[in-house]
């Protein structure tokens, strides 16, 4: 079973202090640590697990600058066989354009499954995967937490809201957007990444793909990025740990909980 997995490099933002860029439509990225989008890490692991049980190959693809090759090398170290980076140059990208670029490259490859993450941790939009599926004419499912290939079909689990999964059968070839928790992504060492440097990594400039101007025109545009609107927010409890603890116990008791 040949699997293609789409990966994106995103900034680590959880512990970071984000600064809005001067133009006001993005963030300052210089000081941020870049890493593989969490969802894509699970997607790579799933692709490699499928290869290990079913045979076949795994190809990892990203659209990004040369720094984003780090996520491809990581995917190669996890067990992908080949990697492709599409260089977008200075082009402005949105989910639509990204899906069109990916589709143009993937349509000429051999595959039974295409995996993406549910969403990217920067734009949080969750659209690239399913747009890609529709452009390629593939069956698809979003927010997948289980995949078991069964011949020309796969039995899949989709996570719904409220602690409910939906099991269904889907015809292959198919595109699935992978949800976190579907597996346990393996650890990759620096050594492993260095060794994977020998594997094939192809770079394609987007200009070579012959996409129409329409396909390369974003459908949406960020006009402004802003800090979350002010709310009354939490009443902050300051002080040393002991006095904070005393205050918290007092509050909890006041709210009618006996501790």
């Amino acid at each position, binding site marked *: 079973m040949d699997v293609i997995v789409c990966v994106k490099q995103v900034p680590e*933002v959880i512990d970071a202090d984000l600064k809005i860029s001067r133009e006001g439509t993005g963030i300052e990225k210089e000081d941020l640590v870049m890493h593989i989008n969490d969802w894509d890490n699970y997607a790579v692991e799933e692709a490699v697990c499928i290869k290990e049980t079913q045979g076949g190959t795994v190809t990892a693809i990203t659209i990004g600058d040369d720094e984003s090759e780090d996520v491809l090398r990581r995917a190669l170290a996890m067990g992908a066989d080949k990697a492709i980076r599409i260089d977008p140059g200075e082009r402005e990208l949105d989910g*639509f354009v990204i899906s069109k670029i990916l589709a143009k490259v993937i349509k000429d490859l051999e595959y039974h499954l295409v995996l993406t993450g549910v969403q990217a941790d920067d734009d*949080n939009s969750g659209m690239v995967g*399913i747009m890609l599926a529709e452009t390629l004419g593939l069956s698809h499912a979003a927010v997948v937490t289980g995949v078991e290939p069964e011949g020309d079909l796969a039995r899949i689990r989709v996570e*719904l*809201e409220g602690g409910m999964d*939906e099991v269904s059968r889907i015809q292959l070839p198919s595109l699935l957007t992978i949800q976190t928790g579907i597996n346990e992504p393996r650890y990759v060492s620096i050594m492993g990444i260095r060794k994977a440097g020998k594997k094939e990594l192809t770079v394609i400039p987007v200009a070579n793909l012959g996409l129409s101007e329409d396909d390369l025109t974003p459908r949406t545009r960020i006009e402004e990025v802003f800090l979350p609107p002010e709310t009354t927010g939490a009443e902050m409890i300051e002080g040393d740990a002991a006095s*904070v603890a005393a205050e*918290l116990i007092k509050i909890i008791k006041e709210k009618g*909980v006996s501790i």
Partner: protein
Amino acid sequence: MGEIYVVAEHRKGEVREITFEMLFKARELCRTFSHRLTALLLAGKDAGFADDLAKRADRVLVFENDRLETFNSDLHKEILNRVIQKDQPFMTWIAHTSWGMDLAPALSVKTGLPLATDCVDIQAEDGRPIVIRQIYSGKLFSRVSFKESPGYLMTVRSGAFLPPDDAEMEPGEVLKQDIPADLAEPRKTFVEFVDTGAGEIDITQADLLVSIGRGIGEEENIATIRELADRMGATLSCSRPVVDKNWLPKFHQVGTSGKSVRPKVYLALGISGAFQHVAGITGAGTVIAVNKDRKAPIFRVADYGVADDLFKVANALKEKLAGA
């Protein structure tokens, strides 16, 4: 501005709350611009949802067919594409749920209409929609515009627009529609629903929840918080990454894909406050958050906050309780 079409979502015989939220917000916009609001219902035979929707829209277009009993993105996409091509509504809204995430991007490519997902606000300016979305895990917001188009698609976040109790009005028309005769066989077939939330403990029944997030760092650290919970007579719950890593079973998970809880007090330790998490604690009496990042979004929804290391606070709590 023109008409707004809202796609109803239902599951296991019930219209889902997000549908009413979308209809409420869409009606507000339609009123401002004196336009008609249409609900689209794709459901099994005699689903009986149409009247409920009619109380909240000017009209309901009903497509009933056995094949539509459970959601199927292939069938939904085909039917909605035809409706949109024929009627050309200004905006079409879909829930930002698992099903909506499976449908909307495909429909966008199929119809050629631009899409913005997970919108928390929708307005119209100079005949074009403008939406507000969260980015970078809710640390920032963005104002998004669209390329000019005959129509626009958006998916709408649950809980963004809360209808008042009296949101009903004079019932609109219910119009039965024919299912296209040439619908292709879907490539995905439903097998079953599986409940993943059941387990030994029921976090929805607790008065006091001590909840841990990724800030717990290591699996070994859970023991010390479990001890604290025990000492407080509290139940342990968690955010999604803790379950994803298999550190706690799924029945501990709070949030959209876990459980909605309503304790008297919810003590969140090392949880950033992503929308999928906080959607599960809207019913909590009091939320106390401990997070070392003073800017963490959780402090926007918490009643009380402590900007400090969770272990420091947990240990101090234990000491105080031991001494008390």
